């Protein structure tokens, strides 16, 4: 069966790639949206922190024999702790200043982190093999589905849903939403807002590292893997609307798919389609698809 005289296998193949990219966009933009909402900081280090996730997983496996499953839990915690340290020592001095300062600081941090990894490991990609239990694939009849890629989509969606549930349906999430809306009043009620901000940054960074570990067996593990991705993720956040949780998840997935399908229909546009959508959305809805006008 052909659609637009393109074999359906190609469509499904690109749909899957789009879904996987979309899953990464969703997890990464979710972290960015969370951080921006509560800290008012545009976390440019997000790509570097994603790369740290992939790299620490690789280092763990290569030098310490830490397997994929342990890394998937341990690495986000470790990278999250580095985030907590960054927030406590640097970011907390910037909250009352213009967004630009947070952007500059985190951009500088990204350069430093990437520079360190380049210094020690060079720019060539390191391979990370797929864990044994997820090797191989399943024939769905209309296409061949590699097990690991299916796992990436499922794991990302579970993490996104878990985060959404925590924020929208629990008491801690109510603190978070209230703190995003009016931190001063939350303090006046006796809520420890500075602690919440630290934890939110740590969690956002841990999400990036989690995406990094998921990405390690799919993409080459190399110091600049994050900076290639993060520009697109920023576009996703702008389209979805800064600070909207559901918006970040839905937009991430949808744009991944749009990007994948563009590769089939008109390949030259596939790397710019997201930015074209961003321009159109900004013209029509400056606050983003799910954002609230200020």
């Amino acid at each position: 069966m052909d659609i637009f005289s393109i074999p359906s296998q190609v469509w499904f193949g690109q749909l899957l790639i789009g879904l996987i990219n979309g899953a990464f966009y969703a997890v990464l933009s979710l972290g960015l949206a969370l951080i921006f909402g509560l800290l008012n900081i545009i976390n440019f280090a997000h790509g570097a922190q994603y790369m740290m996730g992939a790299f620490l997983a690789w280092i763990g496996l290569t030098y310490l024999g830490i397997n994929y499953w342990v890394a998937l839990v341990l690495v986000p915690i470790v990278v999250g702790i580095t985030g907590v340290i960054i927030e406590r020592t640097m970011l907390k001095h910037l909250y009352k200043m213009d967004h630009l300062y947070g952007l500059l600081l985190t951009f500088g941090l990204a350069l430093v982190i990437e520079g360190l990894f380049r210094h020690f490991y060079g720019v060539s990609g390191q391979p990370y093999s797929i864990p044994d239990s997820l090797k191989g694939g399943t024939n769905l009849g209309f296409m061949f589905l590699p097990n690991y890629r299916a796992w990436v989509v499922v794991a990302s969606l579970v993490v996104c849903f878990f985060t959404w549930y925590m924020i929208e349906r629990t008491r801690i999430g109510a603190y978070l939403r209230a703190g995003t809306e009016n931190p001063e009043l939350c303090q006046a009620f006796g809520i420890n807002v500075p602690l919440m901000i630290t934890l939110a940054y740590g969690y956002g960074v841990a999400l990036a590292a989690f995406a990094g570990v998921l990405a390690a067996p799919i993409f080459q593990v190399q110091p600049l893997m994050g900076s290639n991705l993060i520009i697109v993720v920023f576009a996703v956040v702008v389209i979805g609307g800064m600070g909207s949780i559901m918006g970040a998840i839905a937009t991430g997935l949808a744009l991944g798919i749009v990007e994948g399908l563009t590769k089939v229909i008109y390949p030259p546009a596939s790397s710019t389609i997201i930015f074209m959508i961003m321009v159109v959305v900004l013209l029509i809805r400056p606050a983003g698809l799910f954002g609230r006008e200020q």
Partner: protein
Amino acid sequence: MTSAVKPHSELLRVTDLHAYYGESHILHGLDFSLNRGELITLLGRNGAGRTTTLKAILGLVSRRTGSIIFNGQEILNLATHKIPHLGLGYVPEERGIFASLSVEENLLLPPQIRSDGMSVEELYEMFPNLAERRKSQGTRLSGGEQQMLALARILRTGAYVLLLDEITEGLAPVIVEKLGEVLTELKKRNYTIILVEQNFRFAAPLADRHYVIEHGHIEKVIEQADLAANMSMLHEYLGV
């Protein structure tokens, strides 16, 4: 000024309080004190420093100097989020209802600071409208309902000193009347209340004492008993 204060029941004493927002110096040496179970008002024109006085007590200004003794403890250098846990509840100007929270989430938001606050059931009984609309978005309520919610929210926490900023602003007379009843009831239950109020007719019968603030300091203290004799002077101060 505070000669009538019985030392054993004094709950709050503010001495030479200065407060700043960034570079601007808002309070210029404010002095007042409050006994347990009293209701006082802070009167004055817009911009006189009444709201800032409440915020300075709660640590919501960028810098403050002087002394604020609460229940025998100096709270000037206490972290902002720890101050409410001493027993203070705050209803901010324009109510501060959170748009991203439902009515019930708004009600449950402030952490409990003492175990003897009112229960949710008790509060829903006191404000039945809130019970009906508990699943609505907080800011979808009418102005009056939002004000009830802002009050209910701090009564649940067990706070026994209430800092209320302009709670009658923009509300219909029948709601203002209801708020008056609520405050009378709270006074009966021995709550201590600082009321920042523009609506003098609302505040006058409730208060034990009135402080007139001008240019960031206390210009005049009027005991409830002397109110009638001071009316013309008050009108002049308040510009009404």
